[in-house]
């Protein structure tokens, strides 16, 4: 029997690898979405631990407070889809060490918090891997403005952005809006990974 579209998608995604920098409201939700979609491998990087204040938007649960985000997310990914091969780096991404963990990723997701860290990451990773697609997000804070969220593309850099959003220094981040960005990042990753495959 000929392979169906779904079989082809499953086979292609099972061979794909996505790197996620930062495991907060963006990264934890991107990871779970891609795990459920059947991604073969995830490279996840964060140095932080789960705090109670994270639970309003991040893909962790009450019993995981105090755990390293890398360990907690590995548990949650395994609960959602045990087939995913996860490589976790409990590491702070700082200028000079940002690109290394992602050398084997097919697509890289920027899911960091501070604007300066986002900018440094995009610069370093784009220079290190000019041919790898990099999907960034900006403007996740606040509860207004989901209708403004748009995708900007420049070469291999994709930015999902609410360009009128406040900084998270001034406004809280909540699950619905940051989740929208995270799922858009994950969906775009699938679209890029499945380019050339008849998916519809």
């Amino acid at each position, binding site marked *: 029997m000929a392979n169906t579209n779904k079989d082809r998608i499953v086979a292609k995604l099972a061979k794909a690898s996505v790197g996620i920098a*930062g495991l*907060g*409201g*963006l*990264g934890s939700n991107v990871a779970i979405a891609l795990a459920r979609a059947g991604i073969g491998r995830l490279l996840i990087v964060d140095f932080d631990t789960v705090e109670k204040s994270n639970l309003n938007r991040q893909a962790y649960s009450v019993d995981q407070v105090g755990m390293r985000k890398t360990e907690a997310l590995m548990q949650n990914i395994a609960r959602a889809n045990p087939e995913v091969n996860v490589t976790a780096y409990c590491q702070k991404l700082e200028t000079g060490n940002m690109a290394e963990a992602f050398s084997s990723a097919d697509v890289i997701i920027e*899911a*960091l*918090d*501070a*604007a*300066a860290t*986002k*900018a440094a990451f*995009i*610069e370093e990773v*784009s*220079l290190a891997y000019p041919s790898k697609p990099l999907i*960034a*997000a*900006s*403007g*996740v*804070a606040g509860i207004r403005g989901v209708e403004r969220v748009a995708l*900007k593309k*420049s*070469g291999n*850099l994709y*930015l999902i*952005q609410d*360009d009128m*959003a*406040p*900084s*998270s*220094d001034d406004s809280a*981040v909540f699950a619905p809006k*940051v989740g929208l960005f995270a799922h858009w990042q994950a969906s775009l990753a699938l679209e890029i990974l499945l380019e050339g495959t008849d998916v519809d």
Partner: protein
Amino acid sequence: MSIEVNTVTKGWVENETVTELLRRMNFIYPMVIVKIDGEIIPKAQYDVRKIKDGSVISVLHLESGG
């Protein structure tokens, strides 16, 4: 003698650096990514990198939150 900044045509200024262009365009956001003709420009070069006539420039600003 013109450049394109975020799809809008602007005048080209001889010897203008990236920093000077950002100031001229009133891009006041502290964190931006600048690409010129598809190439990402490291921040350390903003004060010295001169914009060539005909450059296609994209400036993306970044806000904290993730």
